[in-house]
């Protein structure tokens, strides 16, 4: 009776099905660009203003260059925008020769009128160095990396000897100075761009619409969604092969892995530990690993009682079994941390003292310090995966259980990443599970930003611990080039830290990078943010 109805129905159904099943490769301009799936939004487009890995990844090596650069293999410092440098005998005067014919980015919002020269170096350094500089207070006037190292106070003067020669004089010898100049945060901005913005009355735009000399230039940014970069066709190291670079912001690591498997991402940030096996088993994916220069720790807010008492901190340290934490959270991809430095560092102390698991002693210490059973404290767990702590939430839960054994109650606290950091900087925590990835290979880069007095206002001293004796040891250590003397001083610092225990070092993790096998030139940079300039994607 109703035969005429059959065909339209069947064909519609078939068409719908066929639409869903055509096995075609779904990206026509697949090889034209790179998609990197990052884990969070950068705080700013200028790494001078923030120390987080997210910001450094998104900006430091994509948009900008530095005077010097770390070699990812050897860790040695090599020329970048500075072609050569020399140091005076007393170690106080550094002279840099600058590269010629380096062009700044030409974008919709800025066209450079001159190549890079000494005035750009002066501008970039003076911005964070001099409080009276016209750009110092733009975007908050807050330069956490440099403040935590006290770098501004140690620089006596910077001057341009000629348009392509810069001299920096220090007040005191600093053997980690070159390493700091090569870190992710010492980027070179365009002085010409700054002048244009200042004359237009919109100086804060310099950190939102960035101009640098790096392999990619900024094109667009949608919060929680993506950052889009175009290729810098005039890049001085040769134009990158990819016409575009995209940071696809994907906070969930399972989704990042899924997108890596479908080819929607070419490389992903922070592959989760549980996913490593899956990545290794797939032929089209690569998992690269390298021992990382990092540390995951549990820091106590030493400004808040009872955590201002070293024996309370020690008691809590004795209450947890680090080995179990490491097994449960890092699987087999981390080593136990005794002091701040990982074994890869030259100042590593193999026989440093460490706290063991001893709940009875812990309770006893608490009783002596007058902390009654039923005491409640908060443990803040970072809401993002980091190499140094891939699952802080889980670690916090384990600590919660350990502390329950010594009758201390734990509230686990977590916010979204930017709120978390803001609250942390205000010191609203009792204790926090967080960590540190070094920006350069120098031991000073661990000891100073993590626990020195200067690092409290700059926010990297999560323990908010200030000890003049400790600071003095650090200062003495950077005033000499003699490795043995420096080593002895850092050992002394370790001893002091074990005695006061402002934080419990937990683990040094390996660094991992997961990417598709079509990519070549992908290397792990142990000294900071990811470098995508030399990465190319082959047609299969």
């Amino acid at each position: 009776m109703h035969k005429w109805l059959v065909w339209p129905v069947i064909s519609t159904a078939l068409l719908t099905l066929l639409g869903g099943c055509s096995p075609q490769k779904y990206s026509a301009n697949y090889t034209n660009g790179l998609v990197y799936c990052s884990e969070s939004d950068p705080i700013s487009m200028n790494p001078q203003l923030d120390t987080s890995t997210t910001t450094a990844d998104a900006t430091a090596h994509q948009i900008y260059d530095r005077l010097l650069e770390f070699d990812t293999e050897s860790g040695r410092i090599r020329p970048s925008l500075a072609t050569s440098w020399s140091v005076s005998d007393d170690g106080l005067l550094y002279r840099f020769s600058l590269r010629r014919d380096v062009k700044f980015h030409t974008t919709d919002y800025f066209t450079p009128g001159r190549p890079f020269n000494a005035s750009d170096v002066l501008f970039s350094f003076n911005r964070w160095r001099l409080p009276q500089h016209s750009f110092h207070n733009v975007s908050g006037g807050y330069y956490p990396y440099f403040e935590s190292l006290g770098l501004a106070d140690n620089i006596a003067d910077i001057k341009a000897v000629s348009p392509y020669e810069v001299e920096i004089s220090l007040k005191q010898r600093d053997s980690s100075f070159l390493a700091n100049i090569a870190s992710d945060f010492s980027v070179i901005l365009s002085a010409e761009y700054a002048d244009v913005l200042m004359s237009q009355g919109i100086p804060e735009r310099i950190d939102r619409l960035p101009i640098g000399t790096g392999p990619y230039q900024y094109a667009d940014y949608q919060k929680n969604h993506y950052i889009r970069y175009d290729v810098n066709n005039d890049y001085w190291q040769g134009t990158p092969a990819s016409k575009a670079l995209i940071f696809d912001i994907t906070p969930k690591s399972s989704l990042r892995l899924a997108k890596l498997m479908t080819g929607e991402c070419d490389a992903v940030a922070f592959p989760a530990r549980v996913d490593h096996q899956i990545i290794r088993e797939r032929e089209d994916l690569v998992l690269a690993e390298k021992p990382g220069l990092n540390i995951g720790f549990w820091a106590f807010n030493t400004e808040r009682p009872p955590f201002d008492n070293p024996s309370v901190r020690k008691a809590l340290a004795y209450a947890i079994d680090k080995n179990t934490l490491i097994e449960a959270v890092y699987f087999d991809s981390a080593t136990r941390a005794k002091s701040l430095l990982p074994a890869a560092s030259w100042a590593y102390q193999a026989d440093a003292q460490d706290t063991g698991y001893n709940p009875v002693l812990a309770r006893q210490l608490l009783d002596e310090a007058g902390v009654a059973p039923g005491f409640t404290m908060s443990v803040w767990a970072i809401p993002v995966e980091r190499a140094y702590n891939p699952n802080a939430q889980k670690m916090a839960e384990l600590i919660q259980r350990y502390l329950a054994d010594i009758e201390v109650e734990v509230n686990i606290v977590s916010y979204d990443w930017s709120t978390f950091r803001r609250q942390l900087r205000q010191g609203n925590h009792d204790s926090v599970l967080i960590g540190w990835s070094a920006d350069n290979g120098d031991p000073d880069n661990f000891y100073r930003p993590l626990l020195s007095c200067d690092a409290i206002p700059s926010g990297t001293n999560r323990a908010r611990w200030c000890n003049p004796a400790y600071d003095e040891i650090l200062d003495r250590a950077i005033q000499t080039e003699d490795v043995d003397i420096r080593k002895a001083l850092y050992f002394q610092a370790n001893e002091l830290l074990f005695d006061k225990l402002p934080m419990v070092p937990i683990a040094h993790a390996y660094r991992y990078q997961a990417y598709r096998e079509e990519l070549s030139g992908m290397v792990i940079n142990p000294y900071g943010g990811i470098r995508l300039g030399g990465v190319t994607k082959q047609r299969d």
Partner: protein
Amino acid sequence: MIRILSRYAILFSLTLLSLCALSFSLIYLFPAEPVTTLTGITPQNLMQHEALMNQYHLNNSIIVQFADYLSELFAGNWGVSLISGQPLSEEIMLALPATIELSACAMFIVIVVGIPLGCYSGLRAYSTTDFTINSISVTAYSVPVFWLAVLFILTFSLQFGWLPLSGRINLLFDIPPKTGFLMIDILLADNVDRAAAFSDALLHLILPVLSIACISTASMIRITRRSIIDVLNKPFIIAARSKGLSSKQIFFRHVLRNALLPILPLMAMQITTLITNAMIVETLFSWPGIGNWLIQAIYQRDYSALRMGMLAVSTLVVMITIAIDLFNRLIDPSREKYESVTI
């Protein structure tokens, strides 16, 4: 006619007013400073606090505050997001079209697949084909949408690698968001291979659309089938048949028209289900729509965003429901007899 229209207009504005009142009361219900929830700005000092209090008349009585709130709303000043600091009107206008686009595509599938299958099933009532279609639709109706979406992702994206699992389009296509509707934006974009961009956007649509459309199609099939069977049993069909009309003529002239009328109001209800499902599916497919946006706002305790997002979504749903009801009322003469207006 004018009476009907004005009744609907009054109903619409009253509903909107109560929605606004609800969203206004949230300012005081959320566990944060009223100024902050209202404007999205956390006052840095007492002076700024005072200035904001004055600007939004928060020192005056509740009635004045509400009146001021309404005038700000209509002026398009919806405050800024607590987290991103962007104007909420901009963020919502970017997210809402993505949801509408997704829902519209799903609705298209629902109509194109659901109605013909329902008709066929109704005409062949109680045959094997009918039972087959019916049991499939009951099964499909019972599947939770979030589970189905995950199943689709596992099979078609991860197992076979045929279809992408996130977003509206591969980000390598640089499509500036002018209208927020991707298909229109592609047409407006320059320097883009439009055909490739279109096919890529379509491929991104398939899985989310299918996951949403599945449930609604199933209920559409059952509604249509029921309606067709009811109409077939009416005396005027026997009369038409005795006049000697062919079955084709009977179907298009008498059965279809009469069967579709009662379907329309039910379809309006389907749309709300569809939008709700769309918001669930968005989070699974990282679709940058209003559902995803609201979930982010919840995670980050972005109170000002939650307040406006809730208002925007409910306004949209109320608008669609009332519009379909009005349309139905206008074309269905049998409904003249109902005096009251209902939604």
